[in-house]
């Protein structure tokens, strides 16, 4: 920790330069690394002996800390690595590539139906967590590294961005304007030129700010940099919401509820009883005159209706029937006392005691062939955080990329010439063209004025 702080306060400019660190600091880092590694191994042993508590996320976090402390002990400037965007951007690509693995191999319960289940590779793949990639220790470690580096990068940028957004740089020096990526000087234009520049900027939808020294700043997309911060922060909100929900709530995505049986909901004091499970079908009907209509078979399994409300006796054949919706008539019990009864379907869940019962899908009973309902039951206490994060994500990225920031300054220099210069961080060519248009307009206005005077 000491070593990291020292790095943060006095960064060394040249990359790869050796730090003049005291042997005591190195010793400290080595001891921390050893302690963390021991803790990591100890917890791993407990975890793989099956304690019943899923602590892969904890193990992943400690894994990262071990790597960080080992790197620190080896003399790497870890803090710099973490706040440099290089790591964050590299991790973006790494997580993207590693995510592919999980789409190529069957995940979760699916593996039991695949050929891999009986193959010799099964145990090897399984030990690497390849059948549950997105919850595996190594994937979580990569994800957490990305998030940690994201948090540090944002934290690093927040003060400057806030300062730049709310304390505008209106009063500037001549050289500052002249050295902008886009800059032009108008000799002899003077204060009159400055007035014209204000008009031109305003015509191009820039908001004007005037400094005490007489310099003018035109600003567009003032909040784009702040929106960029908000966009990246919302990613953290979502991750926090998901982690907190998974740790403090519960989720079971395959509660199988056969008709007429009371089933315990795992992790709760709740029981659920399914009175009946019904499927409604939709398909096509062939009419006597040869045309085709859409038909619906109701959940009773007998009645077939035409969607257009027409006469069923005209239909000679019904085909292509596919399940269109399914319903479970369920009752929820708490400590064996009935609490609430409701027919649920996809998009229409039942809520009891913070737990929500969703109609998920169905399977078939292997012996009788009867359909059996499958429910998802969960309690996600921090769902609101995820929703806020998601909505912020959408709004912020639109502001950040659709309303990019453009800044432009005009100032009368010491020798009476008008200096104009500006910059953007986004579409440089678009800005260059706009700047060229503005300076051309300014030139034209100045010439007209000179003619009117002369």
């Amino acid at each position, binding site marked *: 920790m000491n070593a990291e702080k020292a790095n943060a306060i006095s960064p060394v400019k040249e990359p790869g330069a050796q730090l003049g660190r005291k042997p005591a600091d190195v010793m400290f880092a080595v001891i921390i690394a050893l302690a963390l590694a021991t803790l990591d191994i100890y917890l791993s042993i407990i975890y793989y002996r099956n304690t019943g508590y899923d602590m892969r996320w904890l193990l992943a976090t400690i894994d990262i800390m071990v790597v960080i402390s080992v790197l620190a002990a080896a003399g790497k400037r870890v803090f710099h690595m973490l706040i440099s965007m290089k790591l964050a951007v590299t991790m973006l690509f790494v997580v993207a590539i590693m995510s*592919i693995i999980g789409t190529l191999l069957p995940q979760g319960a*699916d593996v039991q139906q695949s050929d891999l289940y009986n193959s010799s590779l099964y145990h090897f793949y399984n030990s690497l967590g390849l059948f549950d990639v997105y919850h595996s220790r190594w994937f979580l470690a990569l994800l957490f590294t990305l998030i940690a580096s994201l948090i540090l990068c944002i934290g690093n940028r927040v003060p400057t961005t806030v300062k730049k957004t709310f304390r505008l740089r209106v009063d500037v020096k001549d050289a500052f304007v002249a050295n902008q990526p886009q800059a032009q000087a108008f000799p002899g234009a003077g204060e009159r030129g400055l007035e014209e520049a204000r008009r031109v900027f305003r015509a191009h939808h820039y908001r004007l700010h005037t400094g005490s020294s007489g310099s003018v700043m035109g600003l567009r997309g003032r909040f784009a940099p702040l929106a960029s911060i908000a966009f990246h922060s919302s990613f953290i909100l979502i991750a926090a919401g*998901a982690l907190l929900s998974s740790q403090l709530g519960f989720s079971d995505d*395959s509660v199988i509820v056969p008709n007429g049986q009371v089933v315990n909901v795992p992790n709760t004091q709740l029981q659920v009883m399914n009175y009946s499970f019904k499927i409604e079908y939709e398909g096509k009907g062939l009419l006597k005159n040869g045309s085709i209509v859409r038909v619906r078979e109701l959940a009773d399994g007998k009645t077939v209706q035409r969607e257009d409300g027409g006469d069923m006796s005209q239909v000679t054949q019904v085909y292509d029937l596919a399940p269109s*919706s399914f319903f479970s008539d369920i009752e929820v019990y708490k400590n064996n006392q009935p609490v609430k009864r409701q027919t649920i379907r996809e998009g229409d869940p039942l809520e009891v005691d913070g737990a929500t019962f969703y109609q998920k899908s169905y399977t078939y009973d292997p012996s009788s062939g009867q359909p059996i309902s499958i429910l998802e039951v969960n309690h996600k206490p921090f769902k609101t955080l995820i929703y806020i994060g*998601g909505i912020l994500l959408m709004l912020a990225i639109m502001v950040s990329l659709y309303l990019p920031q453009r800044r432009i300054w005009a100032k009368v220099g010491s020798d009476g010439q008008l200096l104009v210069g500006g910059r953007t961080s986004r*579409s440089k060519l678009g800005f260059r063209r706009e700047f060229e248009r503005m300076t051309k307009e300014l030139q034209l206005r100045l010439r007209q004025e000179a003619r009117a005077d002369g």
Partner: protein
Amino acid sequence: MVKLESIFAIVTLLTYLVSGGIYIWYLVTSNRRAARLASMLLVLGFFCHTMALGMRWIDSGHPPLSDSYESLSLFSWGLVLFYLISERKYPIQAAGAVVVPTAFIIQSIALVLNEGPEPLRPILNSGWLWIHVSIAMLSYGFFALAFGAGFFYLIQEYLLKKQYQHALAAFVIMFAAIGLAVGLWLGFIWAHPADAVNQQTGEHFNQYSSGDIYKILGLAGAGLVIALILGFAAGKGASRPGFVKRLPSLDVLDEVSYRGVALGFPLLTIGIVTGAIWADKAWGAWWSWDPKETWSLITWLFYGGYLHTRLTWGWRGRHSAMISIIGLVVVLFTYIGVNYLLAGYHSYAKV
């Protein structure tokens, strides 16, 4: 209604074919009258296309976005609309030689896939879902634009450096890749694998027989050969000194490519978030790592990477162009490849 719809769809296809041919003729001869005729035909075709899609909407009772035919047909409709508007504003008739044949190919693939209007499960007929699908499709369109500009950036750079062999190779490789992809895709459609359902999880997956594999490989090979010939012809035509003037400058191509990503990325973000909200409302799980979800996340991370390499590392030009080209491969896999090659919840809606 269904018959009238297919008449309109076929007239659309024919007018796009003829119009596209005349646009190519215009590119070769610079005959203004040809461009005007092609444009008029295209407007006629666009009208028929609109009628066909409108009838499909009325007939099925939901917006035309629920299966491959509908989404592809709507995609080519959007492409033609976008082009027609641009043509009225800017003198870009030469682009018609690329855009209209592309619209024709997409529309013909759509027609091959057409299985008539299908009823939609009530859960899929929801406002969130229509926003989710249409916005995701729009973002794919912008990424395709970024790809096109990126590809021509590479070509223009080779031409300016007088590396004509490289330009020719780029054309051949690009055509070969597109031909192989289209061939594979048509192969998968032709093979029409049995739709099997996993009894334990209720998930759908495709089952291929050995006959299916031959069909797929056969069409992929045919697509590759045709594309190699076309790519060689196009490359030979373009790999000459005079072609430099026909292409926009490197700066402009680089900028257009960036703008495509900058416009598409927020849309993809909205597409993913609305999809997650909808899934949460329907099944109580906002993210379930299903292949389509995961691949859209991969696409999102990839273009996020593009933006960072550009805006914070300062990459420009060739490197950015390369990333935007690879980006479209990821997009196409997310949009089409996942449906045929990987299993998951999204397989009920092949869009």
